[in-house]
C-alpha cells in the first residue's frame, strides 16, 4: 500500500522490541532465598482477584517462586485440589461430603453480600423477613413494602453458584428456595447490569462488585452496609472465602498461605478489593 515497506518493517520491529522488553522486567533469581518452585491454585472466580493479587505480590517478594492462579468455579477448585491437580483450591463454599475428606480449610477473607435494586427505586431498606418473602416470590409488588406500584423482578444466580447458596442459607434460613420464576444471570457483573437497567429489579452481589453509581444498595433491618457493620456483627449476609489444601500445607504452599493470612496483606489489600480482612473478628 502507500506505506513504504521499510517503514512498515521498522514499525513491526519497534512493536516486537516493546513486547519483548516486557519479558525482561523480572529481575534475576535471588540465590539467597530458600523459597523456590511453582504452586498452582484454581477455583472460585469471586476469590480470583484476591488470589491473583496475592500471587503477584508474593512473586515480587520471592523471585524464585511462581504462583499460577486460575478460575473455573468453586466446585472445580475443590475437585482439583482433592485430586491433587492443584496445590490450592479456592472456594466460596465450604467443602462437604466426600469432597471434604482429606482437605484442610483455610479461611482467607470475609465476603459480604449486598442487596441491590434499580437506582430509581425509592425503597431504602427492607427487613430480612421482607427480603426473604420477596426472594421466595411471596411478595411480588414493591407497594407491599412501602414502594411504588411496581412489579418485583428478582434477579438471581444459577443453582450451582456459591453466592446463591449463601443467600439461601443466610436470608432464607435454609428454608425453601429462591423463586424459580426469578431471572438468572451467571455472574455478579451480569446481575449488576440487569438490575441497573430494569425498574423493579432486586438482586444480590458480592460487595466487591457493588458500584454505587449504577445501582442502589438496600439497608437491611435498618443497617446500612459498611465494613464496620460487618465487623460489629450487624450485617446479616456474608460468607467466608476459603483456600483448601490436601492435607496440612507444607513448604511453599504453607509460605504462600501464611502470606495471604499475614496482617500486612490482609489489612492493606483485602479491604481494598471489597472483602473484609479475616484477621479481624466479627462480634457475635
Amino acid at each position, binding site marked *: 500500500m502507500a506505506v513504504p515497506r521499510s517503514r512498515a518493517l521498522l514499525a513491526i520491529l519497534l512493536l516486537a522490541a516493546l513486547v519483548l522488553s516486557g519479558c525482561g522486567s523480572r529481575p534475576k533469581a535471588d540465590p539467597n532465598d530458600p523459597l523456590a518452585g511453582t504452586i498452582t491454585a484454581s477455583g472460585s472466580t469471586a476469590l480470583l482477584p484476591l488470589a491473583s493479587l496475592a500471587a503477584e505480590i508474593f512473586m515480587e517478594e520471592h523471585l524464585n517462586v511462581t504462583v499460577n492462579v486460575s478460575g*473455573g*468455579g*468453586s*466446585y*472445580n477448585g475443590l*475437585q482439583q485440589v482433592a485430586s491433587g491437580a492443584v496445590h490450592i483450591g479456592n472456594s466460596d463454599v465450604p467443602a462437604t461430603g466426600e*469432597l471434604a475428606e482429606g482437605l484442610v480449610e483455610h479461611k482467607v477473607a470475609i465476603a459480604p453480600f449486598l442487596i441491590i435494586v434499580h437506582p430509581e427505586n425509592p425503597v431504602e431498606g427492607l427487613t430480612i423477613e421482607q427480603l426473604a418473602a420477596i426472594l421466595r416470590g411471596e411478595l411480588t409488588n414493591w407497594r407491599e413494602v412501602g414502594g411504588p406500584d411496581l412489579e418485583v*423482578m428478582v434477579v438471581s444466580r*444459577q*443453582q*450451582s*453458584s456459591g453466592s446463591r447458596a449463601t443467600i439461601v442459607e443466610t436470608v432464607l434460613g435454609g428454608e425453601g*428456595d429462591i423463586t*424459580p*420464576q*426469578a*431471572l*438468572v*444471570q*451467571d455472574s455478579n457483573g451480569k446481575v449488576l447490569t440487569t438490575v441497573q*437497567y*430494569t425498574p423493579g429489579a432486586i438482586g444480590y452481589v458480592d460487595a466487591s462488585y457493588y458500584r454505587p453509581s449504577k445501582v442502589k444498595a438496600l439497608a437491611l433491618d435498618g443497617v446500612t452496609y459498611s465494613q464496620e457493620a460487618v465487623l460489629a456483627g450487624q450485617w446479616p449476609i456474608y460468607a467466608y472465602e476459603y483456600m483448601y489444601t490436601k492435607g496440612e500445607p507444607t513448604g511453599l504452599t504453607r509460605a504462600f498461605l501464611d502470606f495471604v493470612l499475614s496482617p500486612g496483606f490482609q489489612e492493606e489489600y483485602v479491604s481494598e478489593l471489597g472483602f473484609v480482612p479475616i484477621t479481624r473478628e466479627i462480634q457475635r
Partner: protein
Amino acid sequence: MDRVRTADRTARLALTACAVLVALVIAAILLFVGSEGLRLFADVSPLEFFFSPVWNPPLDRFGALPFMVGSVVVTGIALLISAPLGLAGAIFMAKIAPDWMRTVLRQASNLFVGIPSVVYGYIGMTLLVPWVREHLGGQGFGVLVAGLVLAIMVMPTILGMSEDALQAVDPAIEEGSLALGATRWQTIWDVTLPAARPRILAAIILAFARAFGETTAVQMVIGNSPVLVRSLTTGTSTLTSQIIMEMGQTPPGSPWNRALFMMAFGLLAVSLLMILLVRWVSNRGVAR
C-alpha cells in the same frame, strides 16, 4: 516414474488419514457425550427427565421439560417470523429486483452471517428487552425477544438458500408458464415456488437447526429461569442456555453434570436428525 507414484501414494495416504481423523473426532464426541449423558439414567428415571417440569438439582429434581419446551418454542417463534420474511425477500431478489439491487442486497445479507452471536445478544438485551417490557409488559426477558433475535440471526440462511433455490429453477418451465398466458405472479406462485420447494424446505430446516443450537444470544435475552414457558415476556430457559449456565460449576460425574450432558446429547441428536431430514427432502426433490 517411480518417484511420481510414491508421491501419489503418500498424498493419498495423508488425505485418507485426515478424513479418517475427522470421522474419528465426530465419533468420539458422540460417544463421549452419549455415554456421559445416558449414565444419568442410572440415578434419574427417564420419565422424570423428559416429562417433569421441576428442575432443582440440589434437591435431586432433574426435570428437563422446561428447557426442551423452551428450545422448541423459541425456535418456532424465530421460524414463524423469519421463514415468511426470508422467503418473500428471496422471491423479490431472485425474480423481481434489478441486477444491481440484487448484488447490493446479497452483500448486505451476507454481512449478517459474519456478526458474532454475542453482538446479537447484546443488542437484544439492551434494546429489545426494555422495549418489550415497556410496551408489552412482563419482564421483557423471554421467548419473544429470544425468538426475534434468532429470527434476525437465521434470516440470511433462509434468504440466501431460498434465493439460490429459486434461481436454480429451469427457466424453460417458467417461460412455458408465461407463454400459456399466466401472469408473473401466477408463474411465481404456481410454477417457480413448487419447483423450488425441496430446496426451500432444506433452507428452513437448516435455519431450524441453527436457531435450535444457538447459545450465547439466547442466553443473554431468555432470562434463564428454569421454569416452563408461562408467557411471551417472562423468563424461561432453553437446552443450550441451561447448559452454558451450569456446565462449568457442576462436579464432573455427578447426576447434575450428567443431566447437562444428556441435554447436550439431545441437542446433538436433533441436529443430526435435521441433517438427515435435509438430505431426505433434497433427494425427494430430485426424484420428482
